[in-house]
């Protein structure tokens, strides 16, 4: 415990650094994935290709990507930008499939009816398709938030500061409290961002709350619970 009290400054600093690494990566991967997901949804043939590429991306060991990336981007090894790019790539790998599913999940009838009442193609995308894909996109975003915050710690192995530095340092010095602090803070940070995303989702998509209220009141399937 002694460690924690004498290092509050450093811990606070690392939390900020960690945020600065993961938040841009989360936002970037979301922004990049939505159009890719839309492509996969819109053009069936591209779906297989895009989703396989994502699976491939996902299979790259993080450590390897952190090292190989500078060779491609030309950035310094220690540049946090590398890490942000790598995390973004992983985020994209995670979220693209969900994004495609999100657009698939929008009911055709609703789109048809939007067309029928006179939405233009662009108007329909922004006004109908995107918001209605929102709930599923949000679920994808939440997975990305959690996994990105957690994955960002691996950068510490190659010397990019983050909450992961508490693991490597605690490991060298044999301070378990330090590692535990890192773990707890990583989880807390992930859950905090996740909570913010949920909150944002509620604000931006008020109809989902209304829908949930009704879904809850729909009568339970009689037999599932009843006759067992």
């Amino acid at each position: 415990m002694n460690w924690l009290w004498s290092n509050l400054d450093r811990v606070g600093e690392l939390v900020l650094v960690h945020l600065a690494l993961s938040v841009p990566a989360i936002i970037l991967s979301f922004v990049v994935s939505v159009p890719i997901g839309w492509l996969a949804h819109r053009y069936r043939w591209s779906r297989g290709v895009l989703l396989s590429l994502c699976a491939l991306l996902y299979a790259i060991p993080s450590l390897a990507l952190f090292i190989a990336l500078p060779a491609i981007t030309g950035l310094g090894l220690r540049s946090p930008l590398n890490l942000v790019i790598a995390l973004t790539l992983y985020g994209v790998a995670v979220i693209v499939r969900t994004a495609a599913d999100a657009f698939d999940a929008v009911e055709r009838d609703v789109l048809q009816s939007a067309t029928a009442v006179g939405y233009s193609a662009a108007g329909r995308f922004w006004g109908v398709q995107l918001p209605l894909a929102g709930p599923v996109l949000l679920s994808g975003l939440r997975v990305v938030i959690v996994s990105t915050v957690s994955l960002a710690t691996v950068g510490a192995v190659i010397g990019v500061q983050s909450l992961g530095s508490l693991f490597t340092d605690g490991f060298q010095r044999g301070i378990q409290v330090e590692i535990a602090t890192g773990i707890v803070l990583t989880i807390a940070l992930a859950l905090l961002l996740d909570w913010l995303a949920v909150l944002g989702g509620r604000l931006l998509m008020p109809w989902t709350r209304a829908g949930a209220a009704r879904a809850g009141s729909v009568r339970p399937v009689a037999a599932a619970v009843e006759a067992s």
Partner: protein
Amino acid sequence: GCASGDPLDSGSDGGDGSSETIVIGSQDYYSNEIIAELYAQALEENGFTVDRQFRIGQREVYIPEIESGAIDVFPEYTGNLLQYYVPDTEAKTSDDVYAELEGALPDGLRVLDQSPATDQDSYNVTRTFSEENDVTSLADLKNVTTPITLGGNSELATRPYGPEGLKSVYGVEVGFTPIEDSGGPLTLKALVDDQVQMVNIYSADPNIKANDLVTLEDPEGLFLASNVVPVVSEKVTDEMADVINTVSAALTPEDLVALNSLSVNDQESADQIAKDWLAEKNLF
């Protein structure tokens, strides 16, 4: 207040105009950070402005940054640094190493005075092992009949003082198990649990004493001496150099072990450890 760096600042933009700010770096290693902190606080005591860019990582990462001028002061170790520039160096003793190092540094970089404190690779065995096999020196290992496995960071496998060196210099054959905590608690645990019989631990590591390990002597000079030494850029003025030299001179090998112990055993922060030591030594 993020002293150790704005995360989006890669540190490659060295000359940001304010000539009085001096950038101090450190390895991603607690002991090195403490020394860097000593320099930093000493300089601050004397009215200089310091920008701390600590915990940068391995040598291959930060050396280019020192060379590019992004970092002005960096605590180093003479032997290890020399090997970085001259992998097949023949120098062994403190003075030889220091002398050769001065010549080996690229233009624009220099080392200040080296400190008496050393922190170099050393091979350690448990007291039990030492007594049972009657081993106190690397040369004695020849007589050990049971197989010996050496534990240390993976790079040790290819270093001149690694298994190859042991074989060529002392004629000892050892196995090798990589353990990636730079001679930290995991290495120690592996040794104590007899998963490995000999480990590479930095000589200033307080765990050697705390665990009653036996550091094997190195009569043939397998390891080069490695004293603490600051590498500095041209931005470091004579006044600054004086301050740092004063610190270096005051730092004894025992001090370094004690400082490390404060970090590992008492879990104090580098900042606190440095402050207390400077106060105790009453340097400025």
